[in-house]
């Protein structure tokens, strides 16, 4: 009889231990979340923070800068418009420009005054990358 109760305790415990193990006690495993499909974002309705007219637009959508690479001439400006639900930034890796946080449906326009290639990231999601290449206008002495 005693054995039987010991075995009962052992079996119940083993089940509990196994359950607990599945719920996060395995140091090598991840705990997947019930993840619903990521909803698509609404189109830009309002754009705050942009007063100038831009020569080109970079859309920030689904954690990507579109287009990722863009060529413009010196003195021209680009509007960066965020249509994601998440905030993003447009931050030059050399520190030469930084949009601060662009929340959903906010935009930021920047005028590029120097020629060169300007890689940038989102400082909140730094795996998001883009490059603006600024070329000197025809006949000017810049390279």
């Amino acid at each position: 009889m005693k054995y039987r109760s010991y075995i009962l305790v052992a079996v119940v415990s083993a089940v509990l231990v196994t359950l607990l193990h599945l719920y996060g006690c395995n140091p090598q495993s991840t705990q997947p979340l019930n993840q619903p499909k990521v909803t698509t974002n609404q189109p830009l309705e309002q754009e705050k923070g942009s007063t100038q007219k831009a020569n080109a637009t970079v859309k920030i959508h689904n954690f990507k800068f579109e287009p990722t690479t863009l060529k413009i001439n010196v003195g021209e400006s680009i509007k960066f418009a965020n249509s994601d639900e998440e905030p993003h930034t447009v931050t030059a890796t050399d520190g030469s420009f930084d949009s601060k946080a662009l929340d959903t449906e906010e935009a930021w326009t920047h005028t590029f005054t120097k020629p060169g290639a300007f890689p940038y990231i989102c400082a909140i999601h730094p795996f998001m990358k883009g490059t603006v290449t600024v070329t000197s206008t025809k006949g000017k002495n810049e390279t």
Partner: protein
Amino acid sequence: MKRRNFINHVGWTGLGILWAVGGNGLLSSCNVSETTDKKQLNSSSLSFVQISDTHIGFHKPANEHVTQTLQKAINAINSLPTPPAFVVHTGDISHLSKPAEFDQAKQILSQLKAPLFTLPGEHDTIGDRGKAYSEAFSQKDKKEGLQSWDHSGVHFVSLTNVLDFGETGKGKLGQAQLDLLAKDLAAQKGDTPLVVFSHIPLYDLYPKWGWATADSANALSLLSRFSSVTVLNGHIHQIIQHSEGNIRFSTAASTAYPLPSPGNGEQPAPVKLPENHLLAVLGFRTVEFAPGHDTKVDQHSLA
């Protein structure tokens, strides 16, 4: 006789774990350090709390009431049966680094009965390299983003890895901070239990989403000579555990909203859950060091 003893032993071990978990809405109970139990810690019992990713200022459908969920966590921490020695916030206090968000977060966090330590997440340093953050949360005890302190025989180090980013979008500690870490750890004995905090994980959890630190290997090599190291991170908004040698890593739940598990979906965007499901994945955790026992980490959900 032997069989009987074995069954008895297995049985009571199971019940012991059940007891440890049965408390108040704990998700799980894990021994993060198997090595500390071999030595008696020359210290009294210590308990502290980690809270993370409060994202004050977030108001999207994934959680339109982030101040309320933070408040719920604070209330639960304040009524823990064992009052924590301190609370550590592992970053993303605010959502957009706005002074008003820091003010509001500070007001709510100031209700904590225990002293609060903070470190910044990338949401706290947007556009100003943490200026607004450091105006709200004093940085006077930090050098190069590092702060360390001792409590009950345990050495604590808090690191900053959100100000610069590696080539592939990983977090970065920077050489100046690593040098300071080397200096700080040089003064510690190898059997001193270490607890290290940073926002972004200090290992390659999921580099594609930037869930990694570019120069973490340098930090880990400094930690490798210690017999018990616990690394607690935020940023991931879910509990993920990992170990390398004597180093145990664990990311924390958020009090604001969950993120998808690594690679689940196209991007690390907030996951929308029904409210009762949401509260179950939000929370904080307690970490307990008791002399002669394993380090005990308990997850407390807000459900």
